[in-house]
């Protein structure tokens, strides 16, 4: 899962980025409205964590985080957005949600709560109500970051987990290598060539050779018909 963190406070940004990475998210971080606007216009993210009180960065930048959000929705971009701010007045919450935020969390918050809200928003966005991703005998629990095969725990590395989560989120949909790389790496993180093939290989070894299918030259998917892991 690839997140964009928009936060002007250096300490908060640094520690939030690191903690979210430990949670298995790929996190990119921008510090002003102009950079946030430009990044959101050109790249795709699974979710945005948006501070409201932000500097403009450049003279033409949106006035604050709320303007960034409005611009995003004006482009008919449905990327889920969680507002993370110190503004706790009811008016601010209402304005944030009405401007198109999917959720609103007030600083200072517990990281566990933020992580749970991120998972909940991602779940709703994918059109799922149940917290577990389950397919063909493989069950993935995003909250616990645990994967089981027919009830037996499977040990996965963080990156293997991230690839599996991306594929299970939309069974049947084909994800290209670069799409998967996007989910795995934030900016500035070095992408090892053929890393994705390596993780797919590892996953096949742990979950069964037929669980992840390959469309040559296009990408990977898990079969929409159940039972892939048995074949």
């Amino acid at each position: 899962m690839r997140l964009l963190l928009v936060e002007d406070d250096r300490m908060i940004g640094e520690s939030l980025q690191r903690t979210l990475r430990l949670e298995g998210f790929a996190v990119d971080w921008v510090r002003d409205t102009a950079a946030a606007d430009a990044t959101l216009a050109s790249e795709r993210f699974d979710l945005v964590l948006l501070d409201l009180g932000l500097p403009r960065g450049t003279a033409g930048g949106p006035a604050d985080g709320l303007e960034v959000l409005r611009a995003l929705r004006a482009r008919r971009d449905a990327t889920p957005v969680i507002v993370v701010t110190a503004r706790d007045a009811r008016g601010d919450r209402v304005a944030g949600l009405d401007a198109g935020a999917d959720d609103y969390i007030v600083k200072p918050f517990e990281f566990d709560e933020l992580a749970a809200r991120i998972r909940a928003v991602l779940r709703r966005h994918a059109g799922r109500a149940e917290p577990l991703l389950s397919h063909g005998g493989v069950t993935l629990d995003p909250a616990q970051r645990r994967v089981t095969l027919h009830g037996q725990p499977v040990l996965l590395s963080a990156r293997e987990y991230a690839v599996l989560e991306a594929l299970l989120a939309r069974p049947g949909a084909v994800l290209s290598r670069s799409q998967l790389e996007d989910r795995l790496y934030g900016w500035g993180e070095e992408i090892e060539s053929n890393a994705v093939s390596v993780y797919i290989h590892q996953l096949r070894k742990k979950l069964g050779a037929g669980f992840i299918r390959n469309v040559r030259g296009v990408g990977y998917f898990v079969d929409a018909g159940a039972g892939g892991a048995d074949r």
Partner: protein
Amino acid sequence: MNSLRLRLLVSLVGLLALAAAAMAAITYHNVLGETEKLFDYQLQQMALSLRDQGEIDPLQADTLADAQLDVVIQIWTVDGRAIYASRPHASLPARALLGLATLSVDGRAWRTYSVATSSRVIQVAQPVAIRERLAAHAAWRSVLPLLLTTPVAALAIWWLAARNLAPLERLAREVRTRDARSLAPVPTAALPDEIAPLATALNALLARLASSLDSQRAFVADAAHELRSPLTALKLQLELLRRADDAETRDAARVAIGEGIGRATRLVEQLLALARSEPDAVLPVDDVDLVAVARQAIDDSHAFAGARSARIELLATEPAFVRGDAVALALLVRNLVDNAARYSPPGARVEVKVRDEGARVVLEVDDSGPGIPEGERERVFDRFYRRADAAESGSGLGLAIVRSVATAHGATVGLHASSLGGLQARVEFRARPR
């Protein structure tokens, strides 16, 4: 006796009583004077008529002997033998002074008139007490109306006082409804001229209180808001430490927590400093040498400036005294020096100058850093204002503290372009009276 009403009543009734007493005394005196002449004349006429008449006939003697008559008549022969007394009156002396006289007999005063013929001496006497009784009576009659109207006047005063003091009671009721949440001015319309100034003064006080409370509330709200960022950072840093699964991440998390605590501590210290230097805070006043204060402030900030490798110089030739609080002034200088060092690139120069110009004492802190554009130089004094392109995350309070301390000392502070290429902060104090 603190009631205005009661005081008014007592003093007015007292005045009435005094007036009545004065009136009685004057009437008494006047009536006494009037009756004296009248009665003396009457005595005289009676004596003369007896002399001219010669004998007293028996019918007349009965009348003269009537106890109702307050006049006593005695007739003697020339050789002193009493031949007639209208009523036996032992107490009157058996001798007469010719003409009008006042005699005291057994403690009673008598007015007498005596005439002598060739053969007899006739004396007509009348007790003085009768005249006094008449005068007292007249005096009493003259003050009686006044005494009768006094209770009515007292009631009227009581009622009038209540009526005229009602606006005061209304004002008190209005003031009672005010508290920290509602400091609206009390209505001054229809207040008497004597009470209106009180209400006006009260409204001015209420306005000052409201503005002071508002700024306090805003300060507390701002402070609480500002504390959220360092606390959020600390929580996340702690979370990172908890989740770190290798030594390197753990060490980084520990360093970050140290920074986070340092930042929160600095913010709290600055908030306290600002609260203490609020314009209405009471500061001790001494003669303070600004040069010594600047030297100490530079020493204090050297640890920080050293890490940044800024060169700080103090340029001052002689002591420059201002009136003020040494602790607050040190805070002012330290914040200016810290700012200059903090927001300048490594290797920057910072110059602190203190000059006594006679009429004023000037403190200047120059740096060779990036400076602040002219349009933003006033805004940076706002509490919690942070410049968007500032690399350092300060508390946003430093310059607010500087201005607050300067204002409390009657000094002005402004930012200008520095000859060193960066920013110049300039504080001008009035010279202390010599």
